[in-house]
């Protein structure tokens, strides 16, 4: 193949240009820390990285939801536990005052304690988290029950508040006051027991024992449900933590450059460039012109 003079220069120049471009490209990788600069360099991995980035950022949000749900569920569990204790206490009192060892006087004394318990039940019902009543359904700005013991009306609603804890997964963070206090009849039971003790009505006192058993077992069931939800929330938290690690790693593999490799590629490219420049200088020097005249 005959080489014309312009072609000679062109070949030499193109070689140099190619190597400059390689150096520039590795320079870009080292300074940006990313494998590529343009979407077109690897459209598939860019598309995938969008998915992982979305998943990673929603993990943060999910974890916030998990914490919110957990704090409500834990507060609810605490309230229900206190409620259980109060119910058990009332049952013990009812049993003892229904026997022959009690009398009108002991019953009257006990009635004050039961009235006290009734108020404590109202307090538990009014439990708040971050200023919100946890037993009022959606109407968290309103106390579910009045402090007035003779008023057993429920002022909340039947709203079960759901919250996202994982992508596409929701959990109820509350239990409504009507389930806990109305269906179980605890407010009525407390009032009735107090009245029965006050009026020395033994049969009525005995009546409350069965009702209390009922209430206690209903509350137990609710507590079991809350416990299960707390477990779910804990597991969700662990899953999200794992996902966070996984996505961070995958994202890094997909988009981040291996810095050691990039730096060594850059060094090599610089060496090659230098060699090319040096070879070019030599090959461009000699023509027949130099040797003939």
């Amino acid at each position, binding site marked *: 193949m005959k080489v014309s003079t312009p072609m000679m220069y062109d070949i030499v120049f193109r070689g140099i240009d190619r190597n400059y471009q390689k150096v520039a490209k590795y320079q870009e990788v080292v300074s940006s820390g990313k494998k590529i600069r*343009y*979407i077109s360099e690897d*459209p598939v991995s860019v598309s995938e990285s969008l998915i992982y980035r979305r998943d990673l950022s929603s993990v943060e949000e999910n974890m916030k939801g998990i914490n919110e749900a957990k704090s409500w569920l834990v507060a609810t569990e605490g309230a229900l536990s206190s409620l259980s204790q109060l119910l058990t206490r009332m049952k013990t009192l009812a049993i003892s005052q229904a026997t022959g060892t009690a009398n009108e006087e002991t019953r009257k004394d006990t009635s004050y304690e039961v009235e006290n318990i009734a108020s404590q039940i109202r307090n538990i019902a009014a439990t708040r988290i971050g200023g919100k009543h946890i037993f009022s359904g*959606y109407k968290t700005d309103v106390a579910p029950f009045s402090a007035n013991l003779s008023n057993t009306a429920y002022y909340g609603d039947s709203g079960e508040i*759901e919250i*996202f804890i994982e992508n596409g997964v929701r959990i109820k963070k509350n239990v409504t006051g009507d389930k806990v206090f109305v269906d179980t009849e605890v407010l009525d039971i407390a009032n009735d027991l107090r009245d029965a003790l006050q009026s020395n009505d033994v049969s009525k006192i005995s009546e409350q024992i069965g009702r209390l058993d009922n209430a206690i077992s209903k509350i137990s069931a609710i507590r079991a449900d809350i416990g299960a939800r707390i477990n779910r929330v804990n597991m969700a938290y662990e899953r999200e933590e794992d996902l966070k690690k996984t996505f961070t790693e995958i994202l890094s593999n997909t988009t981040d450059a291996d810095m050691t490799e990039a730096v060594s590629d850059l060094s090599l490219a610089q060496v090659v460039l230098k060699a090319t420049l040096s070879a070019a200088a030599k090959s461009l020097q000699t023509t027949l012109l130099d040797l003939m005249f």
Partner: protein
Amino acid sequence: MGFGINNALDVAKKAIYASQLALSTTSQNIANVNTPGYTKQKLILSTEEPLNLAKGDVGRGVRVENVARVYNRYLEESLFDTVRSYGRWKTEGEKFKRIEDIFDEVSENGFSKTINQFWESWQKVSDDPTDESAREVLVKNAIFVSQELRRIKSDLKVISRDIDEEIKGVVDDVNSIVKEIASLNVKIVDHESIGANANDYRDRRDELIKELSEKIGIQVVKTGDDKQVTVLLKDTGEPLVDAGFFWQLSTDQDASGNLRVFWKDPSGYLKDIGEGGGGILKGLFEVRDDRIGSYIQKLDNFANTLIKEINKIHTQGVGLSLYDEILGDYETKDVNKPIGSQDSGLPFYGLVKDGSFSIKVYKKDDKSLVEERVINISKDSTTLSDIKDSIDASGYLSAEIDNGRLKIKAATGYEFSFADDTSYSLSALGINVFFSGKDSDKMAVSSNITSDVSKIAASLTPYAESDNRNALNIVNLREKKVADGGKLTMDESYRSLVSRIGVDAREAHRNLEHEETIKKGIEERIQEVSGVSLDEEMINLIKFQHAFSAAAKLIEVADRLLEDIIKMV
């Protein structure tokens, strides 16, 4: 006898003449070693017709036929074709780099981050609808979404406008090249009519044809003994150059504001030449119309779907506070046309279905429900006028139409909310909506919301501050396949746009690499044939110098012989 010496002198004279011409050709080559498009020239020599004598043929020396270009026309022609594809893909490649920069998704600061934050703020609001700062953040992120979409569309449009300017530039270049080719046709015919080769003109004309070929799709036909070229538009066949005549191109905007290129006939007839059949022009049109045009459409579809789907859910809900009054975000052009028909002028008329919606009126002081007004909607017949009358008939509400928009007001001491919109008319009228606008240009957060974040309808029932069901529904929307005709989720739809751009760009870069390699290959082969090698010319220099010296010596000797003869006489 004297004849022999005379002949020798004659031959020597021709030899000197030939050598001088050869030296001049060599110096022309040397001088033009770096001239682009220069083809090496060569002296064509042959022997003169011999004299036929009885004793045999006697040579009469060297004859200069011509100075010719060393030139392979088939290589040149394939170069013209290759350069057309090269021009197209180079243009597309350059434009794609700019398009890719707009979508900044490699650096993680692109639109995908903005839209992620938008969806997450809805989730945050659903976590606690009473959290006012979460609402503020949601509005802020929603505004970012609409700003980003607007920016991307306008950045793409800027590239389109730049392309229009380039198209004009290409047309100007084509016009001046075509003029010059025509004049070269004439010059070459004139020059070669006196016998010599118009090598330099031919080189110039080939260079111009190559330039032209890079810009637009042409077909070149050699005519008139190869002295002239006729240049035609490749796809449509209109002539650009024929002998000394030339035609021009012009540009003009079409109905949608896009620049188009026309071929002009002297009678004034204009023909739209489409994408120009190849070259840079085709690259420019492809990027502007097929690529950017379709990306903008996808973007607008995305905005339209987001606005529509979010509003369809949002209009079903209730905020932390109820309305004293509300003005719709969309205006109808004719209050007497059914809101479900295109004639209404409502951008989302297509959403309207047969159904109804309720307005619930509450007394402020005790939050009691005083009226539930159900407005029935028939998509083909209910007009805005009808709706207004229907609402106005309420004892607690008044309704009017303000510049094509519905305005509803409650009597003092009362407030209202909406529910159960099975007809989606609230979305069409812009009442209780989250977004206003219909595409990337005009998308915005409704002013009802920006002026009062408590109006973000996270709940389904009024006066229930922790009711987050509507917000939950919106969070769910993210996973629903509502985009691209119901085939993709919103996220998938945006990702597919990014993918599409990446793939289109990669195709352009790869095609460019491919064409570049081919072009280089052909150029090298042309150089091989027609390129000047200084070393070769140096050798020629020596060659002809020796020939010249020998011929001069011949004259000296012949001269002395002649002198001797003359002395004898």
